[in-house]
């Protein structure tokens, strides 16, 4: 094989690898959107501009604190799996925290924020589910609406999350039971 063909082959392999990464990201998410189960997460209340990914609403999924029997088993930034259940209103609850993904049950990878030894509770972060992207000009309005409606006294904000295996993605953000895009359209100029 001459040098030119070798170069061509090498270049083709590199191009394929570079295209494969975003392609696989898309396939995995599309698959989850099609076949994943929908879970509704209550949310807590910021619009940081991320230079790489445009503007987004910063989400705080609930529950953020889990009561556990073995609080001293957990430490800061530890990876854990939250086994999911639903309450009477259809919102997500966390049944327990596990070190490994349990078979046959819906569970999501989370990170331990900090364990509260006195109360026997663990604060968790829902890794990878903290952003909802909006158009640049809409993000601040969405953020404001989100903040106003997700205060403790006025909690009518939630997100739908599609979950397949341990792959999860935020599908939509709802305010007063309406998708954020519709809600913003209705409340334009108010």
């Amino acid at each position, binding site marked *: 094989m001459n040098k030119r063909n070798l170069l061509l082959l090498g270049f083709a392999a590199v*191009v394929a690898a570079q295209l494969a990464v975003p392609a696989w990201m*898309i396939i995995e998410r*599309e698959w989850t959107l099609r076949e994943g189960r929908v879970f509704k997460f209550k949310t807590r209340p910021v619009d940081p501009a991320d230079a790489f990914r445009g503007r987004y609403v910063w989400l705080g999924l609930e529950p953020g604190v889990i009561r556990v029997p073995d609080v001293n088993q957990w430490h800061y930034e530890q990876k854990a799996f939250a086994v999911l259940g639903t309450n009477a209103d259809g919102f997500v609850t966390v049944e327990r925290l596990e070190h490994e993904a349990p078979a046959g049950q819906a569970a999501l990878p989370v990170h331990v924020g900090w364990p509260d030894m006195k109360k026997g509770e663990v604060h968790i972060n829902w890794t990878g589910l903290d952003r909802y992207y909006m158009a640049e000009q809409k993000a601040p309005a969405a953020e404001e609406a989100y903040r106003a409606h997700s205060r403790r006294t006025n909690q009518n904000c939630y997100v739908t999350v599609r979950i397949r295996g341990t792959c999860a993605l935020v599908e939509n953000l709802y305010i007063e039971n309406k998708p954020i895009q519709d809600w913003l359209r209705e409340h334009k100029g108010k």
Partner: protein
Amino acid sequence: MNNKSIQWLYSELPRLVAQGVLTPAADASLRAHYGPVEPARPARLAMIIFGVLGALLIGAGIILVLAHNWEDLSRPVRAGLSFLPLVLAQGLAAWTLFNRPQSLAWREGAGALLFLMIGASISLVAQTYNISGDLPGFLLTWALLGLPVVYLLGTVVPALLYLWGITEWACHVRWEDGFAAGYWPLAALLLPLLALWLRAGRYQVRPTLLLWGLCVSVTVAAGVTIERVLPGLWIMLYAGLFALLFLAGEFWFAEAEGFWARPLRHFGAAGVLVLAFMLTFEWPWKEIGWHYWYWERFHQPAWHAIPDAVLGSLIPIAAIVLLGMTVRRKTPLGLIFGLAPILAVLGYALASLSGKYAPSAGLFDLYLLVAGLWLLVTGIRINKQGQMNVGLLALTALIVARFFDTDLSFLLRGLVFIALGIAFLVANIVMLRRKGTSHEQA
């Protein structure tokens, strides 16, 4: 001999022949010995710089435009569009590789653009599907997908972008309490390319730029890849690292001319001086050594501390070995800067065994004083204004720092500052005058 010196020699030759110092035959044999000089081509360099700048600006622009997030487009369209910048950049790189392989300007520009568009494409998919978190994972994927571009196109800007990527990755992993020692094998992936470039010509622009990048990157990484279970390990590690850089520069890159052409030497020297200045204070020496072992805060398995042991011992030892070689060469400057790791080990032992901080800090007071004086005096003697000023700066920093530690009156402090300022001005004026006269004489 480097290009500049040969050029100077060639410009002197006609005069020497005319004055009868050299015979025409000697002139001819000198020219035959050194060969033709390649004239610097500023136009070509400008093209490379503008090519790269243009590519970087376009790349950044595309990232920003795409980050704008067109909500009106459907998800599949956005997913498809995510590939567009990447495919365009790949096309440009392919065209360059097969049609303009000789043009460094095209290669650097296309390589830089392709590198950036890999990140843009992944970011765009992440935006479409609300994928967040795992910034280290994103950075590492981006850097590794970009690395082949560096080798295929043989370009330095993508190599620097790669270095930025893995350094940033190491910092984020560290920030999240992870294990960042993977930086070292990742950085080593650039070594074959560096070796190739150094062989082709060690004072050329590409290896020099890469060496500057490596100096900065390695300095950051040394700090973030150690686990900090042994308090104060950084003192010996950094003293060893900067001395090693300086001595390597003295040994293998001694013929380069100008500040920018000698990255290892100048980065290493600056590092040693800044570190020595920091070590004249007492805070670095507080609570260090085995008595303050941090095992409890260390959640990771014990083998995670291996890089600490390897880096903390290998780097200072390598520096000391080079120092040994320097002693044989009898270069005083190498001796002064190369002494830093030995003093750091000594200071560390003093502070951790005795529990007292003042002797170790005093050791570096003395070291900085000697190093500063040496640089100042030799700088004046060999007519090197830069070296003289670095010496003066080191002395000034030392005096000012010690001044704030003591309870001297404002008046006295003020007078000493004025005296230092006058010393700076006088030394520089004298040096300029002397240079002026030597020019006139020439």
